[in-house]
């Protein structure tokens, strides 16, 4: 019997090529094609300006330069603004940029001209020769300036408000007014960014012999890019193939499509008849891809003596940058997901999404949830401090209970579906977390540390994460005559180990050897119907689709094998790629079944020779019976009624240095529930990576724009991403598995979990160590130092462990 692979720590198959330097990322492609051309982009040095004139006359004189485009050179749909991908009725003033700026630039980094040359160095030389006359306009930088609206980003968007959205369940304001206790909090988070190690990249090749365009893109959605390229270039969809090879991390930023370069590269390749490559450099990634996180929140909450929330009213302002290609996904997620595992009796949320003259904002791992979690968890901590209660008690008083699932919040989620949680057991998770981090023993530890003159604090934060959003994914499973199984699913992969996790599912479902399964992702030639890899949806969506497709292939295999073995299907089992009649010696290889499935009888291999001993099919009927197809294949799609909801809780113990105000992580604990685990090793890896990104977001990362809209830290030297020296030395992880009833595998998705509670959990722990409220993140040592000075008159925190009541 084949050992069960689902749930096992199977080593990853993709590692073999990565470890040998044989991965194929976009910039690795076509390197030996002498016809390959390279592109570079002229980007705006100004945050807000009108373009008076662009002079490219010096460019083509340069040896090696092949072509240059400005907006004037674009025609048809390419000259129109880029698509607004996810329109929403409340996005009343959605605006998108042009592939190349037309008349106006709205952020530093906006693409103005596109140069193609024999070499990237030469293309950059050429870019430097382009002369642009600007008429400077005053920029709007930051949420405060956007709200003040003394100036606007777009002339036709009053007050910089792109969208205003409100949702309410019950009557929050009345409930707060009637509540025994109320609190008000203002909570801010700054901009950060995905910053994958590989930036964006696109290669395109036009084949005049077949009139086909092939585009390779480092994207999180091949089908999305394909649709955009076809539409913008006026090509039939059937003429465009998009392939996503290995991708060096995405974390959200690569789900945006089309990036200007994703259109300009194919345009250039088709126009010039030569392959063209664009590889973003690090500075370009900072100033011209996307950021996230910046939001300011105002909270009013009413609660009873137990800390039960009776009414919660949240107002917040979201900085979406200069354009809104990806709609309102991020603030909608904040507005709904801030509820976490709790059930406020009455909830109202309203947000405004604001234009600023800074680079666009699109989902970054966690996508609006870190902000929401920060808001809710800071509120829980504030309630606990006010009532003088343990912070875990207040949370327990507000938890949705295990018997209350499915739990309806009476709100609409980002996918347009009801916000209804599928499953979870929050009290059990909290019990595990307290145990894991040593919550109940912490006061002893604090005293011990205080005796040594050391200052420590503990914090916890809980979250619920809507995962596995629809609408669908599909899969195709093909059992070849060799017995090898080829699987294709359309979504892409950026390091999550899909080739391994999906192969585990297929091996188990079909009963074949793991080594015999090969999975292809993100290739529109193999699976043209797909959505993409984001929102922790890959395992849920494609995993389920792959399982269903494998079941179909299996059904067919059993039908044919039953006929060949003259047995009944119920008596058959498949293990290690062999179908056998239970309890007998009678068996047939799956590869041989694959031959039998196709009445084309040429004995070109061993499997076909073997097949000649069996006879299947009714000789009275056509060789391929009506309703049947040749080949041993299965194809299916999975489309969920609504999102799954994973959840988790993190706790951290920090030490704050009395002199330098540096924050050191002493212990980090995670309890995580993403339903059934396909490969715990991969899930834990995702948590490790998420926690590191969260530590960065909470303590170091911020986009330092000056008032003129220049990003002052657009390099790895200045934007502080965690190295090994900044992350916890170990992370204690415990899993809870409450399976989702919404999909056949009971899985929920785990990609973003690690990052969601970071700002909240660190703020809580620092607050606990210092004894004054922490309301803005990230927090640098110098900021903590300033806060200490501001709160210097308050009592010694080592003697008053919880924050003073507001």
């Amino acid at each position, binding site marked *: 019997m084949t050992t069960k692979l689902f749930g096992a720590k199977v080593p990853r198959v993709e590692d073999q090529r990565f*470890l040998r*330097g*044989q991965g194929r990322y976009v*910039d*690795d492609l076509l390197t030996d094609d002498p016809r390959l051309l390279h592109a570079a982009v002229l980007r705006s040095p100004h945050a807000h300006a009108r373009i008076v004139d662009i002079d490219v006359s010096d460019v083509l004189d340069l040896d090696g330069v092949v072509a240059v485009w400005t907006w004037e050179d674009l025609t048809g749909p390419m000259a129109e603004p880029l698509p607004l991908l996810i329109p929403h009725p409340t996005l009343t003033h959605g605006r998108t940029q042009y592939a190349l700026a037309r008349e106006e630039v709205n952020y530093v980094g906006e693409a103005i001209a596109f140069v193609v040359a024999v070499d990237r160095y030469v293309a950059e030389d050429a870019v430097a020769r382009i002369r642009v006359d600007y008429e400077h306009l005053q920029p709007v930088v930051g949420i405060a300036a956007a709200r003040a609206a003394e100036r606007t980003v777009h002339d036709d968007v009053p007050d910089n408000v792109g969208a205003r959205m409100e949702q309410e369940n019950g009557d929050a304001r009345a409930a707060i007014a009637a509540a025994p206790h109320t609190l008000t909090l203002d909570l801010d988070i700054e901009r950060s960014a995905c910053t994958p190690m590989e930036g964006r990249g696109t290669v395109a090749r036009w084949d005049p012999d077949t009139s086909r365009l092939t585009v390779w893109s480092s994207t999180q959605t091949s089908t999305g890019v394909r649709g955009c390229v076809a539409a913008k270039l006026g090509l039939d969809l059937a003429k465009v193939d998009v392939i996503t090879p290995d*991708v*060096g*991390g995405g974390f959200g930023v690569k789900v945006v499509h089309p990036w200007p370069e994703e259109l300009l590269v194919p345009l250039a390749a088709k126009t010039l008849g030569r392959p063209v490559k664009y590889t973003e450099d690090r500075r370009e990634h900072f100033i011209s891809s996307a950021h996230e996180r910046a939001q300011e929140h105002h909270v009013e909450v009413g609660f009873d003596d137990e800390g039960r929330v009776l009414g919660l009213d949240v107002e917040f302002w979201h900085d979406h940058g200069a354009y809104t290609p990806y709609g309102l996904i991020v603030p909608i997620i904040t507005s709904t997901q801030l509820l976490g595992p709790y059930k406020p009796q009455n909830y109202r949320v309203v947000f405004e999404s604001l234009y600023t003259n800074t680079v666009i904002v699109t989902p970054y791992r966690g996508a609006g949830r870190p902000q929401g979690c920060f808001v809710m968890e800071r509120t829980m901590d504030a309630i606990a401090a006010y009532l003088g209660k343990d912070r875990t008690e207040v949370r327990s008083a507000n938890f949705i209970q295990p018997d209350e699932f499915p739990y309806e919040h009476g709100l609409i989620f980002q996918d347009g579906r009801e916000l209804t949680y599928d499953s979870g057991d929050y009290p059990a998770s909290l019990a595990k977390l307290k145990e894991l981090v040593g919550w109940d023993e912490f006061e002893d530890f604090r005293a011990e540390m205080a005796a040594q003159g050391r200052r420590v604090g503990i914090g916890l934060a809980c979250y619920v994460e809507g995962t596995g959003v629809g609408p669908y994914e599909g899969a195709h499973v093909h059992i070849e005559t060799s017995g090898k199984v080829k699987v294709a699913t359309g979504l892409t992969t950026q390091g999550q180990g899909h080739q391994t996790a999906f192969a585990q599912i297929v091996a188990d479902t079909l009963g074949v050897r793991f080594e015999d399964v090969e999975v292809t992702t993100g290739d529109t030639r193999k699976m043209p119907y797909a959505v993409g890899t984001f929102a922790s949806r890959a395992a849920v969506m494609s995993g389920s689709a792959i399982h269903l497709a494998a079941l179909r292939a299996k059904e067919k295999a059993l039908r044919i094998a039953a006929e060949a073995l003259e047995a009944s299907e119920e008596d058959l089992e498949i293990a290690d790629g062999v179908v056998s009649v239970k309890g007998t010696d009678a068996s047939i290889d799956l590869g041989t079944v694959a031959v039998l499935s196709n009445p084309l009888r040429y004995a070109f291999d061993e499997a076909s020779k073997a097949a000649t001993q069996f006879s299947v099919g009714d000789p009275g009927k056509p060789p391929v019976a009506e309703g049947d197809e040749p080949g041993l294949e299965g194809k299916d799609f999975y489309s969920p009624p609504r999102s799954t909801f994973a959840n988790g809780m993190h706790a951290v113990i920090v030490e704050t240095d009395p002199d330098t105000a540096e924050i050191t992580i002493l212990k980090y604990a995670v309890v995580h529930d993403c339903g059934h685990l396909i490969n715990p090793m991969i899930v834990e890896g995702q948590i490790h990576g998420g926690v590191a990104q969260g530590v960065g977001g909470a303590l170091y990362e911020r986009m330092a724009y000056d008032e003129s809209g220049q990003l002052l830290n657009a*390099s790895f030297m200045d934007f502080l991403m965690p*190295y090994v020296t900044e992350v916890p030395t170990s992370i204690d992880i415990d899993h809870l598995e409450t399976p989702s009833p919404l999909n056949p595998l009971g899985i929920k998705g785990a990609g973003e979990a690690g990052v969601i509670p970071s700002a909240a959990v660190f703020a809580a722990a620092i607050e606990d160590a210092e004894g004054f409220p922490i309301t803005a993140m990230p927090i640098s040592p110098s900021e903590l130092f300033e806060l200490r000075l501001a709160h210097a008159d308050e009592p010694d925190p080592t003697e008053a462990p919880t924050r003073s009541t507001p």
Partner: protein
Amino acid sequence: MSIPGAEQLHDVRLHVNGSVHEVQVPARRLLSDALRHDCGLTGTHVGCEHGVCGACTILVDGRPVRSCLMLAVSAVDAEITTVEGLTEDDGSLSPVQQAFSDCHGLQCGFCTPGFLTTITAGLADNPDPSEEEAREMIAGNLCRCTGYQNIVKSVLRAAELGKGDE
């Protein structure tokens, strides 16, 4: 690839992974670009081009060097090892590579070649690092995916595997 026109080209002979690559490059061509685009050794990755991320780390005469901070013309007399050259002669993984596979020390794999070369050199210096020393060994390389815990484990595991080889 040669660049036509005014730019003066230099004949450069690069010794990489035991083979000789004759390339013609302008003086300004980064070694990272020469390896990737002229020699076709795309295993070496470029994450920042300003010497901070470590993704482009290669071994130059056995020492870890950021190939984005070196010009191809200055590498003429050196013995270069890239990630492609780390595997054993029989094609099996080196202890460091094997350790990464054992410990799930990589996710997207983009930073991995720089870690593998850095650690290979680090273990040559210090074959038996403590956990603290293992962390120090990789403290100059950025990884956005793994959170580093498993990379630290990989260093220690590689040391173990390396000892087994002796």
